[in-house]
């Protein structure tokens, strides 16, 4: 087996281990726990919202704005993680660059705020 494939062996072992641990605990629970199903208990759980109606139901448009804003700052975080590991290499140059980057993104937040997007109507 080549060294390249051996690296992936670890991934496979981890995957098997994860399946084993989760399956094992849930299986143990199934043996020991009492089983008294009610209508409320067997419903699907989705973020605390009752699963009523069919799958194509409409959701509030205002969630959409928050999702967009979330993506903006999520991407910011993705940029900051690799930067943080290399901060010492880049020193002040890196620091200033990141401050500029976050500042420009913050201006986007200012724009969203002034546009009234952050108000829950």
């Amino acid at each position, binding site marked *: 087996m080549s060294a390249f494939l051996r690296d992936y062996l670890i991934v496979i072992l981890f995957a098997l281990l994860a399946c084993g641990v989760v399956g094992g605990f849930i299986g143990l629970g199934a043996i020991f726990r009492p089983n008294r199903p009610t209508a409320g208990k067997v419903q699907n759980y989705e973020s605390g919202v009752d699963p009523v109606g069919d799958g194509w139901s409409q959701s509030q448009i205002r969630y959409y704005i928050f999702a967009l804003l979330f993506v903006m700052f999520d991407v910011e975080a993705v940029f900051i993680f690799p930067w943080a590991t290399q901060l010492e*290499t880049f*020193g*002040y140059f890196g*620091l200033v660059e990141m401050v500029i980057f976050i500042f420009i993104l913050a201006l986007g937040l200012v724009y969203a705020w002034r546009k009234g997007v952050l108000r829950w109507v």
Partner: protein
Amino acid sequence: MIEQLLQVQTDSPEVAWSLIAPLVTLALGGILLITISSLIPSLKDNWFPAAFTAGTAAAAMVFVVDIWDRVSSTGPEFVVANSMSVDQYTVFVTGVICISVFLVSLLFHGYLQREGFSGPEWYVLILMSASGGVLLASAEDLIVTFIGLEILSIAVYVLASLHLRRGESQEAGFKYFLLGALSSALFLYGIALTYGATGSTRLTGISQSGLNERGLSPAVDSSMILVAMALLMVGFAFKVSAVPFHLWTPDVYEGSPSPVVAFMASAVKVAGFAGMLRVFFVGFGPYVEDWRPLLQGLAIASLVVGSLLAIAQSNVKRMLAYSSITHAGFILIGIYAAADPESRSNGGVLGAEAFLFYLLAYTIMVAGTFGVITLIGRRDDGRHSLDDYRGLFKSNPVLAVLMSALLFAQAGIPFTSGFLAKFRVIAAAAQSEAYVLAGVAMLASVVAAVLYLRIVVSMFLVDSPAEADEPDALPSGLSAFPLAGVTAVAIAVVATIALGVLPFGQEILTDAAEAMSAMR
């Protein structure tokens, strides 16, 4: 932590801010505009955003003139860790993009008031898109090229769908976005294959990896490079809407807000051509024999399809969409002649001059033409059939004359910049012995003239049918139209005729063309 930071030797890359000032001005202008008008909302609805955008474009133009003088004496400069190159070619293209932003911002002002939209977003997106175009024109690395392409495009996808009341506008934005994403994916695939074949994304690195003392290096996987070049060409051909990658153009031009189309047809295309030329001249210079036939095919297809399909249309915006495809064919001939490996001194420089002159002339006349369309569109921007232009000369003689001047320029009638542009392109093609291309170009310009004449005839000769008792009738007299928009159209007409009559600027063209020929 702070102590540690102080001790570190910072090896920040060389940026040379003064040389990328136009790019920074455009991007910073957009950021400033959106910040100022968020903090002071009362500024949103008056002349401020338009004036600010036009002022930003003018400021960038001032930097362009200054940098032109600098690079004329020093030669090409490589900036931002060699990822961008500033030479006379880049500076010329930047200037053309700034002209487009200036004219379009003037058109926006009256348009937004008529349509009842407010807000700085339209202007901000134009500025952002223009900064991406400048980046695309000067990128020396395929990754930077891609970033420029995306900054340029994403803003325009949004602009295309920004007319919120019109379903067609949403449709146009969606179509443009989906097809644009596909072409971006193909472009990225091309970058990946290029990197796989040559081990570099830097344009100079790509061209050097292909060469050794006996010509093309056998170390480079040439089949992979052929596929890579084809994919990159598809990405650019989509942006400049060359046939067979033009199918989005009529729908998107018809649906998008008219002043946005003025920007799409001018600055976006110019940036696309500029990026295409730099990537292929600098990066794939050694493979010129391989990619030059692609240009020939694209050019012939664009000329034939663009000029023939335009005749079948009855919507003026669709007609001009096909006309812009024909123009793309002419510009591709300019690149084809400029890439002539035999006559780097004769046909090459002639072709480069023709290409650059065509970009300038085309930008001005197409921005002006869509400016008139913007003015005539009525509220909701939906009145663009040929019938809506009937009898325009009777109700608005000045506007009709301005429009005819611009259409004659697009058709290539003498004493306009359009004639000189087409003449230069065809002469350059003949000089590099591409007689078939030159012949097709001449035929296409004759066929395309029919289309422009159809619009002119309907403006002048046909009496408008009971236009007067229509509630939505076009106002008569120029004063009914927004001043800024009329000014933009007037500037475009004056520049179009001046470029066609007065032979100024030849030395600028020659300098930029020589910088362009020196790239490969």
